[in-house]
């Protein structure tokens, strides 16, 4: 009975995404995109890959956490988690709220970012903006607003995410992820 409990608790621990559970790979970084809108995810991933960068990048896509435990050993250390919130889908929002429980608390010290899409079409918003802002506030993570259907905005968002990823992976000397996230906090948050 005890053994089973211990096994289960271990399993639960393993299903949580942890920021420093593996050794980093030289000159590379990994980003995890979590969101229910798979087309947008794929488009964003492709745009990120096309950007000019001088390190290797691996992009992982997921619709929700926890990540399947079978591929855990092949997966590299995740440096940045981007939660893609589509304001037009309540189901997606609830999904993301549920996934947040499977993220280790240390991730929220600057290695998590919320990407909010779909704000352009005000008539189809089914998620309240105050709820989204509250999410960003509670988890002390930056909110990035963008409309990923437009290519120009997609490219600039990809560049921003790449820069954040560089910092979170430790490639920028003197700037740590925590320091950077403190810089990203706007004056509205206080």
């Amino acid at each position: 009975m005890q053994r089973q409990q211990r096994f289960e608790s271990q399993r639960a621990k393993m299903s949580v995404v942890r920021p420093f559970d593996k050794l980093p790979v030289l000159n590379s970084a990994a980003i995890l995109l979590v969101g229910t809108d798979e087309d947008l995810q794929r488009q964003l991933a492709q745009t990120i890959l096309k950007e000019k960068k001088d390190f290797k990048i691996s992009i992982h896509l997921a619709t929700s956490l926890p990540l399947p435990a079978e591929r855990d050993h092949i997966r590299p250390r995740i440096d940045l988690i981007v939660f893609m919130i589509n304001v037009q889908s309540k189901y997606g929002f609830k999904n993301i709220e549920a996934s947040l429980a499977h993220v280790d608390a240390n991730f929220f010290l600057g290695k998590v970012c919320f990407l909010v899409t779909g704000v352009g079409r005000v008539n189809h918003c089914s998620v309240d903006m105050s709820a989204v802002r509250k999410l960003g506030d509670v988890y002390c993570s930056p909110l990035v607003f963008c409309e990923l259907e437009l290519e120009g905005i997609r490219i600039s968002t990809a560049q921003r995410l790449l820069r954040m990823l560089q910092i979170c992976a430790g490639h920028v000397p003197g700037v740590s992820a925590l320091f950077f996230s403190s810089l990203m906090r706007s004056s509205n948050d206080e």
Partner: protein
Amino acid sequence: MMVQELCERQGFLRDKQDELLQEVEELAKHMSIYPHNLAPKIATNLECPVNAKEELLDECEAMWKKLEECQSKLTLLGTETLTDSDAKLSLLMMRVKALTAECNQWQKQTPEIISTNPDVLVELGKEELQKVNHDLEMVLSIFKARNKKLKEDLKREQQWLEEQQQVVEALSVIEEEMKNQVVQFSEKRAFQELKIKMLKIKEYKEELSSALGEFLEEHFPLPEEDGSAKKKKSLAKEPTMQLITLHEILESLINKLMSAPHDPYLTINDTFWPPYIELLLRYGIALRHPDDPKRIRLEAFHQ
């Protein structure tokens, strides 16, 4: 206290790891200049490295070992997830601890000097200069584009300004012309026109009054005095009054009305021939005073 220390340690280790990673990567980049593969573990112990490559390899190795040590320490620390209820508070506490740890570490840290090997320094210098060159080229192109745009904007604005000035000039010319006309008009012409009007009206008035006089003389003459003189003599007490014509009666009525509109009443005396008074009253040309039968006025046809 223990927890705080642990958190500090954790923060310190994380930062150390990040730092080491950065340095490792930089060195790895330099290593790529030299056509050798970087093996992850070199078991040999080089005493005095002769060339730059070996020195760099050594540094890499030392850093990687430190990295592994930090990693092993980190894996010992457990995971914790945030619950909904106190997520913000616990997260903020964590942030405070981590930031203080990072701050302390920055204060304690002294900058490390990179290797003094001249080959390494030359390569590093080259790379720095290339980066700076690239950045400056980007800046230059941005400023050129901005400059061009500003010039175009300036040209457009100047054109607009010119057009507006032309419009202003044309309008001021028209204004001048109009001003002159207006001045002339208001001073001379209006005066003359009024004069002419006045003359015309006076003429018309004279025409009307003469026509009226003629009409009245023809149709409403004063009664003859021939027959009644004898009868009057027999009575001998009545004085003979000079009767005034209907024309005169009307004239005096009009004048009274025009000159004193608040009191247009005329007192009837014996110079007024009574039948004519009756005539005026019956046809509504004159009105009696409501209190005094001896006073009459002209009906105000103009009001």
